[in-house]
């Protein structure tokens, strides 16, 4: 099946499409067939993604020159046709996306996909959108894939009834529609000035522009950037995020974690391909930095204010977006590898965390338990151990309560999630933040921004501990009125696997980071990317297709 290998780059897009479309033919009662198709497709995508990842490493130099694979759709070479480009970054993102998707899919089979809607089809389309957005080398095609993943997200978000869900869904759609218009205007303007849509081709075209034209081009890029920032969930364009994500069912929220990162990816990809103008790059950098910091701060505050776990996790997504944007905004190339590391970890983290919320939801306490956290503690608390208080030890029996195995498992996962979100060692959240800080401090001499970022990273981590313990203790450490959730193997397995994966990443940080460094290097040397895209492909004539 050499030819299948040759078509590997398009597999992560075509497989979900086929699966999603085929499943529409099934009756509502044919659940097992649907599940089989969905799982087969998802695992096939994961396999393809891992193969792509492997081909971009130095381990397989014979497959693609410089580790960058280009697949011309329809046999039309860039810049005329649409090309899929597999470089380290995109392969990494696809692998990440499919990993989370596979986990959430398995998870959802436990019980979440039940209410008859075409859940599995839409989920496949979501995967198609995400993978396509990561793989495409064409700006307008990126728009199309954005729309696919958005449409899928609308569908998944609006599952189930309820005023709240519909209201927030409406807000989500409205904001994304607005950003869709911005996207279109930005892309159009870029095409209008530079005359091309291929991202690699743009780099060359931009260099030839007169200053006035360049400014108009930059305007297009700026408008496009705003659209990306909306997707990335950056403040103040992200009010929808902490409202929309928590209302989705747990596996869907988990799968959504990757969507904000699509925005970040777009910023990174388009930014590095267009950022040859130093002045513009510096300006862009500062704007990004400040927006990132604002996002970081806002997300941190939101996290502290969250009374529900899902909302908290949503805010942690915002925090991670802010952190990524701010770090990218500093314009320090050495930071890119840690940024990628952090990105990967945060996607896995939020995915796991959201799935966990689905499993603990039914263990949740009634709301009265919340009040104690918001109200100041009652006066006797201040004099604990003082005379005014009756012996606190006479009443309670000092015999521990055995945690049911389910609760213990969930508690363990919860602690892992907290450690990941807060960046506590030894999980990779710490490794990522350490690498970020360690690199950033190398540039801190006379650069206040670095200190701001460092403070932001640490404060947000601390806030995560503060907020998660507040909620987590209520979830796991309250005995009154708790019902122990039933642990389903299909839910536990993917969650545990993701946690194990993070542990693995942490243990193998050295080699993982080496890959990210290579990805960062090629990202900052767009020439290789451009060479790969614009050079003639095998089986594709430079001017057209082979006949």
């Amino acid at each position: 099946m050499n030819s299948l290998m040759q078509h590997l780059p398009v597999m992560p897009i075509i497989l979900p499409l086929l699966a999603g479309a085929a499943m529409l033919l099934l009756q509502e009662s044919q659940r097992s067939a649907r599940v089989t198709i969905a799982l087969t497709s998802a695992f096939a995508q994961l396999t393809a993604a891992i193969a792509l990842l492997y081909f971009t490493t130095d381990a397989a130099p014979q497959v693609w020159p410089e580790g960058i694979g280009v697949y011309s759709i329809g046999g039309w070479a860039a810049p005329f046709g649409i090309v899929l480009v597999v470089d380290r970054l995109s392969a990494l993102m696809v692998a990440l996306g499919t990993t989370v998707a596979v986990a959430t899919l398995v998870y959802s089979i436990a019980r979440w996909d039940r209410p008859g809607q075409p859940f599995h089809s839409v989920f496949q389309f979501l995967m198609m959108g995400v993978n396509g957005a990561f793989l495409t080398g064409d700006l307008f095609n990126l728009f199309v894939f954005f729309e696919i993943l958005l449409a899928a997200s609308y569908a998944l978000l609006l599952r189930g009834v309820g005023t709240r869900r519909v209201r927030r869904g409406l807000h989500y759609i409205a904001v994304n529609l607005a950003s869709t218009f911005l996207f279109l205007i930005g892309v159009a303007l870029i095409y209008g000035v530079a005359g091309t849509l291929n991202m690699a081709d743009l780099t060359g075209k931009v260099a030839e522009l007169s200053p006035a034209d360049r400014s108009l081009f930059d305007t297009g890029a700026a408008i496009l950037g705003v659209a990306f920032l909306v997707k990335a969930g950056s403040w103040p364009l992200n009010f929808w995020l902490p409202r929309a994500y928590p209302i989705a069912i747990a596996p869907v929220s988990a799968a959504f974690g990757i969507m904000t990162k699509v925005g970040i990816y777009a910023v990174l990809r388009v930014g590095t391909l267009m950022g040859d103008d130093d002045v513009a790059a510096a300006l862009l950098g500062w704007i990004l930095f400040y927006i990132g910091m604002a996002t970081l701060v806002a997300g941190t505050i939101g996290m502290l204010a969250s009374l529900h776990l899902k909302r908290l996790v949503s805010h942690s997504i915002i925090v991670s977006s802010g952190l990524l944007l701010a770090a990218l905004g500093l314009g320090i190339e050495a930071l890119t590898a840690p940024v990628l590391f952090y990105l990967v970890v945060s996607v896995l983290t939020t995915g796991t965390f959201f799935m966990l919320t689905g499993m603990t939801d039914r263990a949740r306490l009634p709301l009265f338990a919340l009040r104690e956290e918001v109200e100041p503690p009652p006066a006797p608390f201040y004099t604990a151990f003082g005379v005014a208080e009756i012996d606190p030890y006479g009443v309670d029996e000092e015999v521990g309560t055995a945690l049911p195995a389910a609760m213990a498992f969930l508690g363990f996962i919860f602690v892992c999630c907290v450690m990941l979100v807060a960046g506590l060692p030894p999980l990779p959240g710490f490794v990522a933040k350490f690498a970020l800080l360690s690199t950033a401090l190398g540039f801190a001499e006379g650069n206040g921004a670095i200190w701001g970022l460092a403070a932001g990273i640490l404060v947000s981590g601390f806030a995560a501990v503060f907020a998660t313990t507040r909620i987590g203790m209520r979830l796991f450490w309250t005995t009154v009125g708790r019902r122990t959730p039933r642990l389903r193997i299909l839910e536990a397995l993917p969650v545990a696997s993701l946690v194990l994966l993070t542990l693995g990443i942490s243990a193998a940080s050295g080699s993982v980071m080496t890959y990210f460094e290579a990805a960062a290097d090629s990202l900052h040397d767009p020439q290789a990317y451009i060479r790969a895209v614009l050079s003639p492909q095998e089986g594709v004539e430079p001017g057209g297709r082979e006949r």
Partner: protein
Amino acid sequence: MEVLYSLAIGILAGSGVWLLLRPRTFQLLLGISLLSYATNLFIFGMGRLATYKPPIITTDNATDAALYADPVPQALVLTAIVIGFATTALFLVVLLALRGLSGTDHVDGREPGS
């Protein structure tokens, strides 16, 4: 002509944005439609204005690009129109569902001040 064309886009966009900022869902729906007209015209305009040059090859060897309007933005607009249509439809249904559930056509699902 360019001035006129730009003005047309501007008016559509301005009306669209005005509606987009209104509090009623139906206003938003119309605003989205108007904005998509404006956006489509904008994209289309990026191919510059060409009258009487439809990009359809009538004689086989007439392959000079100057004979035709730029076909690329047209193709982009087509995709944009279709996607715009789809999202408008979706927005409409969500709007109806919200009206049904919340009893008001305010975008926030509740009347201000209530």
